[in-house]
């Protein structure tokens, strides 16, 4: 009997589709279609910040927003970075896309061609007037004279080091140059400890650390004027050679490391240094069992000769994909509400230290600075804000906008190159040349 039910479902659903379509046609073809089954008056927000503490913090904020009795209350739906590419493609094609989708610059280049992203130039200009965005916030989302996402928070990488462990190894100054870093890593290595924990798995974590070093060596912009890859250059090869040398002082299984492993090694004292973003602040004391003073931070070391300050930096933003204007406007209202200084800090402190403010009044907002983690590590937070100024992201250096960057970052080309060098012992120059070929193939599709 239940079988019948299963089989009857298909025609039933088909009938439902027909009904809905009919209803919308009568209603003038607007509204209703975009929502996920019922509850057509809520705005859906998709983001990929899965850790429970972030979801919880944002839910609290959303609840507060919904209490202000907006026309469209907001509902968050947490997605996974690994599935979002297929999911959003399927959702757009079936008109079930969310109203708001959080993004990073290269993901935007993937979503835009799907055809539902609305330009948000006006609201961004308005917000800029009100809160004064830093320049790096909007640049990677600006293309064809429009802004395609509302910048929400920034992220930057730093060199993190264990003061206690480096002191043990006789090092009291934070490494400033590549040579210093190698020397410090070597000195701190031994007795079951690694000098530094570097990711070298085939993943985005690896791409990002390598890219930070590339920036300090003047190799941050590896595209020609017209957006063609220009990766096979001496500065790039040098950077990979350096990363390979540094890997000698990284744990032996680094070739499978992603985000979590270096941090765990660092906090457990199995490694004395690491390069990552501000997520190192919050769990430090609890996981290491050491006082906060033992967590040192410094700008990414640069080559002594001809180096320049640099680190991977990107603003995370929110795209608006609403089907109709009223919902789009409501989505913009919600995003603007989040950027109000009294709410912005609470939003950022979902992961204090990792999510950095992008507006001038956000930097000073009490709601942000008063958080315990921010006050405890104020010095490091300031250094991160400072480092942000020299930050950049590949494909978007100096106002560039490479449409195909998603194809390159999706394949983790930088990580693949370092794996060839560090794991297979391939000559860096050869591996970089192979990387150039991979990028060319990726761009030509």
């Amino acid at each position, binding site marked *: 009997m239940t*079988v019948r039910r*299963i*089989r009857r479902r*298909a025609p039933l659903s088909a009938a439902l589709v027909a009904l809905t379509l009919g209803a919308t046609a009568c209603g003038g073809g607007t509204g209703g279609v975009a929502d996920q089954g019922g509850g057509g008056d809520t705005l859906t927000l998709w983001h990929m910040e899965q850790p429970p503490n972030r979801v919880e913090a944002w839910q609290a904020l959303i609840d507060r927003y919904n209490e202000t009795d907006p026309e469209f209350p907001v509902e968050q739906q947490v997605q996974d970075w690994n599935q979002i*590419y*297929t999911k959003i*493609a*399927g959702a757009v*094609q079936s008109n079930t896309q969310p109203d708001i989708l959080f993004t990073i610059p290269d993901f935007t280049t*993937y979503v835009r*061609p*799907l055809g539902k992203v609305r330009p948000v130039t006006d609201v961004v200009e308005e917000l800029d007037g009100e809160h004064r965005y830093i320049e790096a916030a909007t640049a990677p989302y600006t293309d064809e004279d429009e802004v395609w996402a509302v910048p929400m928070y920034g992220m930057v990488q730093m060199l993190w080091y264990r003061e206690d462990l480096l002191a043990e190894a006789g090092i009291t100054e934070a490494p400033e140059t590549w040579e210093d870093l190698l020397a410090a890593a070597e000195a701190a290595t031994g007795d079951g400890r690694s000098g530094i924990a570097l990711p*070298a*798995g*085939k*993943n985005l974590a690896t791409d990002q650390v390598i890219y930070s070093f590339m920036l300090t060596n003047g190799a941050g912009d590896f595209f020609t004027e017209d957006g063609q890859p220009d990766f096979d250059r001496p500065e790039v090869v040098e950077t990979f050679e350096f990363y390979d040398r540094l890997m000698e002082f990284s*744990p*032996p*299984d*680094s*070739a*499978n*490391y992603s985000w979590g*492993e270096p941090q*765990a*090694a660092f906090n*457990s004292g*199995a*490694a004395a240094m690491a390069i990552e973003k501000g997520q190192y602040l919050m769990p430090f004391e609890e996981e290491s069992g050491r006082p906060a003073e033992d967590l040192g931070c410094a700008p990414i070391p640069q080559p002594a000769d001809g180096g320049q300050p640099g680190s991977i930096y990107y603003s995370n933003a929110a795209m608006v994909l609403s089907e109709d204007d009223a919902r789009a406007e409501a989505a913009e209202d919600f995003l603007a509400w989040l950027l109000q200084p009294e709410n912005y800090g609470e939003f950022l402190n979902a992961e204090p230290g990792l999510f950095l403010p992008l507006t001038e009044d956000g930097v000073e907002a009490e709601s942000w600075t008063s958080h315990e983690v921010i006050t405890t590590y104020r010095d490091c937070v300031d250094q991160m804000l400072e480092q942000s100024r020299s930050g950049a992201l590949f494909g978007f250096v100096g106002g560039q906008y490479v449409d195909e960057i*998603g*194809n390159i970052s*999706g*394949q*983790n080309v930088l990580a*693949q190159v370092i*794996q*060839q060098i560090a*794991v*297979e012992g391939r000559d860096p120059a050869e591996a970089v040349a192979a990387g150039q070929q991979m990028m060319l193939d*990726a761009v030509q*599709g």
Partner: protein
Amino acid sequence: MSSTAAPGAEGGLRTRQGGAPHRSAGAAVRPRPRRSRRGAGTLLGIVLVAPLILLMLLVIGFPLVNTVLLSFQDQGVVGTPSSFVGLRTYQAILGDSALWESLRRSGVWLVGNLVVQTVLAMATALLLTRVGRWSKAARTWVLLPWVIPTVAVAVIWQWLTNSNYGLLAKGLGVLGLDGVQFFADPDWAMPTLILMNSWHWFPLGTVIIFGALQTIPGEVYEAAKVDGVNAWQMFWHITLPLLQPVLFALGLVGTLWSFNIIDSIYLVTRGGPSGASTTAPVMIYDTAFKAFRASEAAAMSVAAIVLLGILAWLYIRFAKPEEV
């Protein structure tokens, strides 16, 4: 290709019944008189089979047709507009050594899993047939690795093999074998993944073989014992031949099954390090969803299906045990 293999496979599976009445085996082949009094039964039969067929058409059939069509086009990002390009996509992927390399790795993955799982399952099953409280209890807990979600299996194994705090890595270190880097070493990544995946799946094989062992009449062993045959000979000359039909079927289904496994690999190494664990399904996934070349991925899928079909056909043709 697969359609020609399928009925043959059915024949192969049938031999697993061993002592089943030949009446039923023959009935499927023998042409039946049309319009017999069983006509109503046939109608009922069709109705009964319909849900299964419809479901498979909806969930497997339609997407499969879609994949084949897609392979003749030039789609980039999955689901975007594309145009017909005939066999050009096939020319591109079949000439690419990366595809053949990934298929070779799939071969290693497949054989490795088959061997490890069969040996492990066989040994465990033999152990479980012993009488005694311990064996009896083990019949339940031995299933545990199978009921754990693959996501958790991946976490557990990465946790065990981490060089800084992993118990397995540390334990080997104590034995002076700290050179093994498991998932991070291109030579070890595949073997470690095979071990991990086998750990996850061998309980199912164990249970099936255990069941088959239960059906071997005790008298066979008694008689052998009287003839002074030792335990090892007994295993080789009695147990193994009698298990052949089950092992054959397990080999067939298990092989097809493990070929398409992607989550175990992707959750741990994503095909790395340096491509060492990029099997064909991993490559297909990456091509479709990381490199955004949907049509190439579809063509690779079709190629993989054809290849599997040929393999299955050969296997049934040559490895099918004699009727016992």
